């Protein structure tokens, strides 16, 4: 059993699993968003967690002082994600029934005094928060290791836990992408959200049906691309940034079979059976062309000629296409011209490019797992690897 979990936890498998779970959760959010589900899931979670904790290796990982915030994070995010879905489900049922959301009920629109209603709530939060922090401080010592010594590095040397998502990306991207471009785009993307999402609905109340696209994209980025990677980086990465299952001992000597090959090598050596060209640009031309093509996708999507094809696939009644969400996805794509018409090209391109670049991470992950692909463009001479 433990070995199975160890096996499944490897990002090669756990990432798709997480994606599928996420997909199921969003698809059946009305089931998830019930109190009954919460009770069952909560109970199951605590039982499994309790069983997991019996394992010394797992215990070691979760009780390491700097990992405690992550346990708290997992618990609170888990609960609040359910809570959100619960709220959404409640509201959505009402909206589907033609009623207003709960927040818009007259009794909730009623104006109440800030004192004592709001002030007291805040006071309670402060008191509870202080008590919680003090208790946390007493129960767990703040981490402190050996005095700083620049001549030897601990292994693994990890960044603070909230940056471990970025550090995990380093496995797939060079630092300039994982450490600079991607975080920068996350920041820009977040700030841009209100300007991209022009859907006027869902302002001031929980809802999913009214803003499916926005919510599912945000939750995917937040839960899967951010929190999942942090959890992997914290719990499952040991010495040499090698993967270790949750029940696996962090053995220093562990080696994972991994030898990655550049796209240019695939193309020239294995494809064309030629020595690598001396000219850097020619050598990397396949990767460069591929990248340009990838970056061209958003432009291509605006072509009206494609629209009809998307439309037809989107309206297909094929069961497989529908269950795997391929048909709805194409339906979305078919909606692009309408979307552009509504919001304009600038919004469209910002939005789609952010999405495309965000998608580079899973794309690169999959390519790595499937083909041991190292770099699409490998120009170490210019420190430019993609």
């Amino acid at each position: 059993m433990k070995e199975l979990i160890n096996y499944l936890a490897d990002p090669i498998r756990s990432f798709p699993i997480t994606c599928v779970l996420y997909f199921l959760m969003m698809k059946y959010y009305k089931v998830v968003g019930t109190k009954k589900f919460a009770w069952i899931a909560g109970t199951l979670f605590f039982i499994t967690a309790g069983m997991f904790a019996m394992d010394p290796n797992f215990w070691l990982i979760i009780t390491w002082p700097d990992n405690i915030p992550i346990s708290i994070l997992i618990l609170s995010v888990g609960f609040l994600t359910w809570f959100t879905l619960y709220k959404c489900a409640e509201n959505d049922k009402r909206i589907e029934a033609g009623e207003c959301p709960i927040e818009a009920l007259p009794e909730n629109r009623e104006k109440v005094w800030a004192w004592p209603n709001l002030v007291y709530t805040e006071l309670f939060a402060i008191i509870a928060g202080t008590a919680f922090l003090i208790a946390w401080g007493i129960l767990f010592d703040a981490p402190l290791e050996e005095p700083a010594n620049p001549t030897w590095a601990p292994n693994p040397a990890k960044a603070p836990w909230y940056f471990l998502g970025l550090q995990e990306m380093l496995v797939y991207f060079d630092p300039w992408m994982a450490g600079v471009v991607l975080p920068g785009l996350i920041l820009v993307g977040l700030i841009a959200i209100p300007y991209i999402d022009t859907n006027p609905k869902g302002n001031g109340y929980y809802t999913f049906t009214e803003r499916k696209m926005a919510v599912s994209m945000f939750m995917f980025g937040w839960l899967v691309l951010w929190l999942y990677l942090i959890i992997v980086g914290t719990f499952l990465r040991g010495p040499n940034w090698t993967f270790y299952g949750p029940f696996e001992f962090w053995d220093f000597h562990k080696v994972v079979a991994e030898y990655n090959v550049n796209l240019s090598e695939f193309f020239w050596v294995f494809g064309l059976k030629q020595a690598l060209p001396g000219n850097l640009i020619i050598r990397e031309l396949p990767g460069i062309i591929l990248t340009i093509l990838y970056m061209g996708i958003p432009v291509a999507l605006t072509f009206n000629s494609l629209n009809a094809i998307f439309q037809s696939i989107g309206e297909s009644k094929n069961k497989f296409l529908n269950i795997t969400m391929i048909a709805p996805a194409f339906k979305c794509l078919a909606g692009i011209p309408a979307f552009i018409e509504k919001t304009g090209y600038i919004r469209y391109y910002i939005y789609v490019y952010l999405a495309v670049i965000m998608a580079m991470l899973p794309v690169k992950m999959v390519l790595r797992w499937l083909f041991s692909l190292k770099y699409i463009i490998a120009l170490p001479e210019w420190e430019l690897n993609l």
Partner: protein
Amino acid sequence: MAEKGLAEKVRETQVWKSIFRHGPPNNARNRAAVVAGNVFLHLHPIKLKKSGVQLGYTWCMGGLTFFIFLALTVTGVLLMFYYRPTAEYAFNDIIALKEHVPLGIMREIHRWGAHAMVITVWLHMFRVFMTGSYKPPREFNWGVGVILLVLTLLLSFTGYLLPWDQLAIWAITVGSNMAKATPVMGHGGPGAMLMQIGDFVMVSDKNDVRFQLLAGRFVGEPALLRFYILHCVFIPLVVGVLIAIHFWRVRKDGGISAPL
């Protein structure tokens, strides 16, 4: 006539009256006055929609984040009395906090509070997104919020170095090495090698962004001092100003979001 209670007597003193200019907030007029007349409370509107006070709607994460920020400021200022940001003393001062400084547990509270703030600020953003509260007219405030979130991470990151232990310097080393890879501006990033004329190297480990951050080629004493200043003075100041803007805009944008 019944004897006046002690509380009432106190309320009638000139001192009390000079401070609180209204009676107990048990009627409409005074409830309004208590909020409007108090410099701390007047951040709040006098009345607000019921949904805005419901924990189920707000999760109170923004409030908690602000409160933790205050708690961190207080504990942080206190810790500064015992902590010296120098290579020879920093680690020992942290040990001192643990071993003999009275209520040195302040450090634990500060450390865990920092982590808690990162979590609450993320959850605050999560909630704001889920209720669509970034939608007009609140777009700008969402942007301020995102910057505050980044600054929170930076606050935590800069504070991470201060204990000056292995965990600290290597976490910062790993973190700051990313700055090295900044395109053109970092000596390990794409384009850096183009910035060279003869033996004049315009981007090297002695002048790139990482050097500016660390005041050195590696995490050393100047980096400790620089992070200390960033952590204790510079970022908190910026955060304070942005928090003021954030709150002010919440009010100006019509209070906590609610269905239109």
